[in-house]
């Protein structure tokens, strides 16, 4: 499928090499970061297929990603992070990938830490693993308002999940085929990380957090400003609340 696989050196882990695997990279106007992200993913594992989902980017994200040899899905307009990421999951599901990692196109997730995120999935101990900024060392720097928001959400999600969750907004994830199937079939639109966690729990998939450190963005701005934080919180909490009662698209017992 990918040309780079022909010249691949041995991947870091034989359990990894045995599986058909893909990195899903959502990107919105990340022409300055996307090339480096692809390079680092490949440095981590040459046999890893990479699909960049450009969410209506108006810069050269698509061209840069193609130049770096990634598969590129170009969405015709901005669907928002949920719609973009789900496109990647559908691609992974339809093309028979057994393992997927999700790494953001802005470079804040360090592919060198993927081994840690992948470990519980490879060991068969979890269906989905989330890299948490707060599970271990407190290296992550962000605005105070945002940290408080992340803490509150983590507390609410933990209560719903009856399982300790420290970082419900992290998009640094690894998934097995079961989890890929769930998200390909049904993925939240507005706050996919938080709502997705609740979905995973409802569908009785095994969720695990591992500590990671994230990098500050090198170029560009985050999609959420400090100003909208409270409004954001209110909407997320409403979405979470509704999500608890909502009809499920993917059958619960079958997921």
């Amino acid at each position, binding site marked *: 499928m990918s040309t780079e696989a022909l010249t691949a050196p041995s991947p870091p882990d034989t359990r990894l090499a045995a599986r058909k695997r893909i990195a899903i990279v959502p990107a919105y106007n990340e022409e300055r970061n996307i090339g480096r992200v692809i390079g680092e993913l490949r440095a981590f594992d040459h046999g890893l297929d990479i699909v960049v989902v450009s969410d209506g980017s108006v810069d050269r994200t698509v061209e840069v990603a193609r130049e770096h040899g990634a598969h590129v899905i170009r969405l*015709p*307009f901005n669907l928002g992070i949920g719609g973009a990421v789900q496109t990647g999951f559908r691609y992974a599901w339809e093309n028979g990938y057994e393992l997927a990692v999700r790494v953001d196109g802005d470079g804040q997730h360090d592919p060198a830490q993927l081994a840690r995120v992948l470990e519980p999935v490879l060991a068969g101990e979890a269906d989905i693993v989330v890299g948490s900024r707060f599970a271990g060392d407190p290296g992550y720097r962000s605005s105070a308002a945002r940290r408080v928001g992340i803490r509150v959400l983590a507390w609410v999600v933990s209560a719903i999940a009856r399982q300790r969750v420290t970082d419900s907004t992290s998009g640094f994830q690894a998934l097995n085929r079961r989890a890929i199937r769930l998200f390909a079939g049904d993925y939240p*639109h*507005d706050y996919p990380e938080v709502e997705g966690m609740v979905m995973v729990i409802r569908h009785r998939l095994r969720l695990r957090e591992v500590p990671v450190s994230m990098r500050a963005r090198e170029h560009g701005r985050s999609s959420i400003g400090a100003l909208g934080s409270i409004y954001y919180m209110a*909407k997320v909490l*409403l*979405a979470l609340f*509704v999500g608890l*009662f*909502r*009809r499920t*698209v993917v059958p619960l017992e079958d997921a």
Partner: protein
Amino acid sequence: MTPLKVSIAATIVSVLLLVGVFELIRSRRLRERYALLWLLTGVLLVVLSAWRGGLNTIAGWLGVRGYPPAVLFAVGLLFVILVLLHYSTVISRLTDQNVVLAQRLALLETKLAESERQATSE
């Protein structure tokens, strides 16, 4: 003061509106994003309908003499206008996206037809 029967009827109708909106969200026929204004409308109407003293006070502030439930009409109307305006922006965005989709699809069809023609002529 608002007649008791008016308060009771208004409260029941407002609660039904809230329940209806919630059921629509739950059954996925309405996205939260488009339900926020409706929920706000419902909550406000429930509060103003059930809290008779409050409605009376607000009517006093606004200089509504004689018939406080007029404030209920005003609030209801204001929110109907807001919801409609919101829908106009949503429809505009959908129209733009529809144009883009049609263009992308047409371009794709052309590309496919051209590459098929190329493949058969080779």
